[in-house]
């Protein structure tokens, strides 16, 4: 480039984009460190990856426990098949790759080799939902829909570093296959301010409010808490119900909160509007005869754009600022 002319710097895409906003507290590689800690107590734990150890924080485990780490190469079907084999022989594999490659590429292997036999394989997948601007090859907008549909699969969408740290030992206690979305690298830390404790299968009310109930999972809970603070300036009182376990769904808590009446129910999810938390909640409300007004904040049924992550979060309405405006619109 001509270095004499100062041009405005274009916003750029990157495969690994930080989801932490500026000034946000973060914790480094919570998954990797939690797994090392778990492995110290549980000799059956092994780590496996498909050429993405460094990008799923599994390298922390690989360095700490090299004899319990299996590099399977960039071969996701092999990864899932071999994980099933190891589980058959008594190991508890923690398997990592990107969400797209596990759910789209190796679906049949997870379905037949792992889930159908109820094997004890924990699949931790980075870049869930829209957490990279790299384009549709790496954007996992459908992962929850696919994994919810798989019989016997437990599905978790954690919000922050604290939750990931607590999730790792919790899924080890659970006997059976688990799909968990993974936030890697410098992961935001927010739930410590809410006295939060992850419990598999439990939704948690983080904040109560009269006007609107935001039901959310994953990074959208972080956003929902920020939105609630923004709305409070306009005297709008928002409740936030965090649903970390997408399957099995904590129907009792969701129905109790949504059935309190008089509140708009909004489901916010970092996932396609099809087949994720929104549709899961809507189905439960309908089955229970709860007719609260209902709205969904979700990604469109489309191949998403490549671009800078903040741009895309704005474009698709899941940034704090756009989400705040959307809610204000709905609440009149």
């Amino acid at each position, binding site marked *: *480039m001509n*270095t004499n002319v100062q*041009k405005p710097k*274009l*916003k*750029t*895409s*990157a*495969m690994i984009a930080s989801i932490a906003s500026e000034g946000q507290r973060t914790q480094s590689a919570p998954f990797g460190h939690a797994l090392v800690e778990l492995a110290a107590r549980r000799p059956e734990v092994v780590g496996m*990856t*498909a*050429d*993405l*150890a*460094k*990008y799923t924080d599994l390298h922390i485990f690989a360095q700490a426990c090299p004899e319990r780490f299996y*590099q*399977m*190469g*960039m*071969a996701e*079907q*092999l990864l899932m098949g071999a994980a099933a084999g190891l589980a058959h022989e008594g190991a508890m594999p923690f398997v990592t790759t990107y969400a*797209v*490659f596990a759910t*789209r*590429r190796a679906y049949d292997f997870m379905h037949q080799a792992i889930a159908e036999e109820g094997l004890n394989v924990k699949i931790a997948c980075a870049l869930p939902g829209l957490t990279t601007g*790299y*384009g*549709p*090859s*790496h954007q996992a907008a459908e992962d929850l829909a696919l994994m919810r549909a798989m019989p016997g699969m437990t599905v978790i969408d954690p919000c922050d570093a604290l939750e990931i740290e607590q999730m790792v030992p919790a899924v080890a206690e659970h006997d059976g296959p688990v799909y968990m979305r993974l936030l890697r690298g410098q992961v935001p830390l927010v739930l410590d301010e809410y006295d939060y404790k992850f419990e598999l299968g439990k939704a948690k009310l983080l904040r109560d409010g009269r006007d609107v109930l935001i039901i959310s999972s994953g990074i959208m809970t972080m956003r929902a808490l920020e939105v609630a603070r923004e709305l409070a300036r306009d005297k709008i009182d928002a409740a936030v119900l965090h649903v970390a376990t997408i399957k099995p769904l904590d129907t009792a808590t969701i129905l109790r909160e949504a059935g309190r009446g008089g509140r708009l129910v909004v489901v916010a999810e970092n996932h396609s509007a099809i087949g994720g938390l929104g549709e899961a909640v809507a189905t439960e409300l309908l089955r229970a005869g709860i007719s609260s007004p209902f709205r969904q904040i979700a990604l469109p049924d489309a*191949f998403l*754009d*490549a*671009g*800078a992550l903040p*741009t895309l979060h704005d474009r698709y309405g899941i940034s704090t600022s756009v989400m705040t405006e959307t809610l204000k619109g709905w609440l009149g």
Partner: protein
Amino acid sequence: MDTSLKEARAELAERAYRIRRNALLMGEVQGQGYIGQALDIADVLAVAYGRAMSFKPGDAEWEERDRFLLSNGHYAIALYAALIDAGIIPQEELETYGSDDSRLPMSGMASYTPGMEMSGGSLGQGLTIAVGRCLGLKRKASKSFVYTLFSDGELDEGAVWEGLMSAAHWKLDNLIAIVDVNNQQADGPSGQVMAFEPLVDKMEAFGWFTQRIDGNDLDAVIAAFDAARSYTGTKPRMIIADTRMGCGVPFLEAREKNHFIRVDEHEWQLALTALDAGRNA
């Protein structure tokens, strides 16, 4: 070497230089990118677009063109550099590389870019698509070749071996596959992530007409492409190109972790200067 080949060689060397330069300029826009790969594959792309392939710069969809399928979508920066040089993408767009609403996203996608024949990014798919395109071209009695470039890391994927086997089964003599062996993938050296040698024996056993060359020796690249095109057997053709990450910019070549290079701001000029020095040497 006769005079006409000498001239052609000099032109291709210039083309390879311009491809490397374009790639560095795009990398500079973003401050990062798969620069190591772009520099290693520039000689192959120069020969593909400057000698081997038929295409019309103003008509990326021209029916009689040879197809080039970039399986390793993260090499897009290299292919954009070649497409810009070939006149298929306007030079001005170089500055938009990887930016919001650009036609040149970081990972190659067919729906975004003229001249991009497939959407890559999810690795190990190119050869399977190439098999279908070759079958389709044969149905139309087309004389076009399908070229596909993939990387040694993609050999980890089972789908690649499905493609290799079926190409020979269908006697796809209109298929020329190039595997870039730079021995570098996301988690480390390809051979350590998943051992893949001996590659020539494997490809030959799978029924391919196979050549292995130094992919940064321009004469060898020219000879291999010429031989692949003129080979008269019914086998699909394979060029195994051993390349050096960062080739043409010694200090990038020497960098150990060069799968995804972050280059400091001042280093881009140094890289361009180093590239120029090599060109004039």
